[in-house]
């Protein structure tokens, strides 16, 4: 069990908790919170997929350059930065996902505000117009 699978497991657990909230809660605000928890789980999974055991953040600073040089001396050849850092692409993509998740959460909350204004209720069972 390394950190990558650990992050994956945690993410799956968060998604399950979030879905439980989405499916069983009656309060609209709690449903929005459930959505946020699912969202967070997905982000953790995305970052976890990009993780490689024993590597460091994809920032090419002085410390990383020293490690590259040290690794190069050990191997007796020129080492490559790519063998020391984790995958930067999922980290960049998760940034997009976080922003979109924030946008959706804000929209959901705005709908909740409007609904509450109409019926003075946060209980989802008082909105049955589309139920069949």
């Amino acid at each position, binding site marked *: 069990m390394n950190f990558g699978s650990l992050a994956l497991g945690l993410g*799956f657990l968060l*998604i399950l908790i979030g879905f*439980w909230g989405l499916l069983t809660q009656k309060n609209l605000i709690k449903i929005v919170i459930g959505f946020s928890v699912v969202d967070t789980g997905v982000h953790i999974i995305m970052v976890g997929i990009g*993780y490689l055991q024993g590597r460091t953040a*994809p*920032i*090419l600073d002085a410390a990383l350059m020293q490690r590259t040089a040290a690794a190069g001396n050990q191997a007796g050849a020129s080492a490559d930065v790519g063998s020391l850092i984790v*995958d930067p692409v999922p980290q960049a993509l998760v940034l997009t996902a976080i922003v979109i998740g924030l946008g959706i959460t804000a929209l959901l909350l705005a709908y909740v505000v409007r609904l509450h*204004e109409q*019926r003075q209720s946060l209980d989802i069972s008082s909105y049955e117009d589309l139920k069949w």
Partner: protein
Amino acid sequence: MIKKIFAFLLLIALAGVFLVVLQNYETPEELNLTAAYYAEHGAEEVGAANLVSAIVVTYRGLDTLGEVTILFLTASILSFFLKQREERGKRSVRASSELLRTASAVLVPFIFLLGAYVFINGHLSPGGGFQGGAIIASGLVLLLLTDPLRKVSSRLLARVESASGFIYVGLGIAGIFLAGGFLDSRVLPAGTFGTLLSAGLLPILYILIGLKVGTELSGLLTRFQEVQVPDGGDSPDLKKGENV
């Protein structure tokens, strides 16, 4: 009751799928081709020490433009939805505590400073425009918690937002003529690797993104701040103490 059981079964099925995925997941040993390319050529092509920033702003700059557009759309839809049709008179709020007032007076300038630091150094250290913008908006949250009736100048926010968005796209278009393509950061000279003035246009673009995101998030917050719950707003349908 039947609904609860159904939900429970659904969750168990989902958990089973996740378990299979987790058991068959093999951690990769090497970077995949795309990531290896970015690791190898990112430093010389873009010149940003932070590879994630290089990907976000330059390699996937179009995605970032789309992201900023989504935030803008959200802000527009929110202002449409939450527009107050009529003035409902003054809201009365309880005065916030001494602790909160003092803490916000001391902390807010530093929070704004940290936000600006994070997006100015986005190409060198962890962080960037989105993170810095979020930090600035969190400073505004503290201000609004202290004084919920505080008037935030939405015109100033809108001006900063549209100006930074306009300049961002304008600099992106300049990349078509002066460098390799839309949002190419090689319009300016690359500078010394690892210093503040490096990576060409990337820090400027990230500062603009930071300003845009910060003002957009602040705009979202002020929209929610303006929401007024009518008197007796406690929902009568929710019975107190019952876990709904």
